[in-house]
């Protein structure tokens, strides 16, 4: 990490208000409307501290839920939901599929893989393409947000999301998900989760720059012998498939996507609309024609 040249100029610890373009100091990027922003989540750096989950709940004032133990791992959050917009997955590689219980995983990883999951802010976002009210829209930062004053809770975005992210709240009957801190971006603040991440596993930035950074990271990991590292959701990688051009929140993974509860070839549901409509309407037309035929025999 380098210290931004602007930082020494403002040494005060109590501030009168927002620092203009604070994200420049915390994430090295200026936030401007009309550009594309996103998250690069490097799972090799994740230590499972859940600071992102806490920061997200705090900033967005999201209520607690599931106050029980799942009993399956240190993951007691379980899944993303209407009230949980960051979720750290804990994958414990106890046996690695070998019957004798030996491990294939290098010891430095302590038999754990962790990943902070989040809304992918898909390019061609299936949730947004499904939304009949226009409540789901694409912001000036190219992220995907639900407008709470428009959503009427039809719930169609819920099964439309190929990553199981968006969910309906039974408290208010609206759909909720990560906004990529739309309110913070508007005032030049880095999203809460990325800012709170102590290992920089979650990196916020401009998408093109993040892609370059991520590719460099993969190359460097390959050089260090971690040949299983690859990107998920960057253009032309797994996750950016089936009509999804790329995911604004993309990941560096070291095992197959399903291990992290991600599909290896998600697809855009809108591509299935026209073929099925045509097939259905053609069937209806043929049968209407047949009805004329059968009715004519009665004359």
């Amino acid at each position: 990490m380098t210290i931004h040249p602007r930082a020494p100029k403002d040494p005060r610890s109590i501030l009168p208000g927002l620092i203009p373009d604070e994200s420049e100091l915390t994430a090295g990027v200026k936030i401007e409307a009309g550009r594309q922003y996103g998250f690069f989540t490097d799972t090799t750096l994740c230590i499972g501290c859940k600071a992102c989950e806490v920061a997200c709940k705090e900033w967005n004032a999201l209520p607690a839920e599931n106050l029980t133990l799942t009993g399956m791992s240190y993951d007691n959050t379980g899944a993303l939901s209407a009230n949980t917009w960051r979720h750290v997955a804990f994958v414990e590689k106890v046996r690695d599929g070998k019957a004798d219980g030996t491990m294939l995983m290098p010891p430095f990883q302590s038999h754990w893989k962790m990943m902070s999951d989040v809304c992918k802010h898909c390019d061609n976002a299936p949730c947004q393409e499904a939304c009949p009210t226009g409540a789901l829209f694409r912001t000036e930062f190219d992220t995907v947000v639900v407008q709470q004053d428009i959503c009427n809770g039809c719930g169609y975005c819920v099964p439309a999301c190929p990553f199981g992210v968006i969910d309906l709240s039974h408290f208010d009957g609206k759909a909720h998900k990560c906004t990529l801190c739309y309110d913070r971006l508007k005032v030049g603040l880095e999203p809460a989760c990325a800012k709170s991440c102590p290992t920089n596993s979650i990196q916020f930035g401009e998408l093109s720059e993040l892609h370059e950074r991520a590719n460099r990271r993969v190359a460097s990991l390959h050089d260090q012998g971690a040949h299983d590292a690859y990107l998920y959701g960057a253009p032309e990688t797994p996750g950016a498939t089936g009509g999804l051009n790329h995911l604004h929140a993309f990941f560096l993974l070291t095992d197959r996507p399903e291990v992290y509860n991600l599909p290896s070839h998600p697809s855009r549901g809108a591509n299935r609309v026209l073929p099925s409509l045509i097939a259905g309407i053609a069937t209806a037309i043929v049968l209407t024609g047949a009805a004329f035929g059968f009715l004519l025999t009665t004359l």
Partner: protein
Amino acid sequence: MATPAGKIPTYYGRPAIKPSLYGWIVALYIFVGGLAAGVQIMVTAAELLAIPGSGNVSFVGRAIALALAIFGGILLIIDLHTKSRFYNMLRIFRPTSPMSIGTYALIGFGFWSLVAFIAQAVGASLIGLVCGCFAAVTGWWMASYTASLLAATATPLWAAAPKLLAVRFAASALATGAAAACLISLGVSANPGLPRAFGNLGALALFIQLVASIGSAAIYRKVGVNDPLQGWPWGPLYIAGVQLAGILAPLVLYVLANFFHGAGTTFWLIASGLALCGGLLMRAVVLLAGNASARRPEDYFSFAQERG
């Protein structure tokens, strides 16, 4: 990628996607919407050809189609989780969203059905017929879009065979419409040719539905998403209730009605009743088994694999 394809891992067997929140209300709507469209198409065809006795049939049929369209709209509003904002559906038209397409299909269908019914009621039968034709054409959308709606989700059982799902839904809409038209003709028309024609059309529609469902089952097995349709509780219900009692039995009865002239009426009555129940049950099983399939990560991951 790291590991070659083998058995697909899951994350502690937890769901990878969220099931829809749709339940029996939406299943009932899909049935009701398809039935309304089917009846409208059937009676309008009969009236267009000026079949003797079709006047009464089309009047009753139009009344039923209109009532069902209104009922369907109410069902959809009831299913919203913020009902007071139902009119937000009309803020935009989004061609990528079958929910949006369907909103306008239902409104168009309801509008033309209403005008057709009123015109016929006041004796303007030509206007009634023209508007009935418009309603019937919007009915083609009504009969099909619900399949697009399910197919455009990530739910494996709905998305794996989008075209065949639409063929099944549209065929079922026309089959239930023919069944209703058959019952109406038995009730209000003296022409025995009408129930026979509707019955035979019903048989053809059921046959298409049967073939399409067998074809889609083959795709589901290939893609690896068929388990919810085989296991408890949807498996037995699907085979016994939908395929045998809801499709095959009425199909056979409709065909037999052509040969046993004395028992025709009984056959038509039973076959139409079975076809109607089968249409409702088919939608319910597809919907609920689909929700079950979304909860199975193995099914979703198997669906979301690259295929050549």
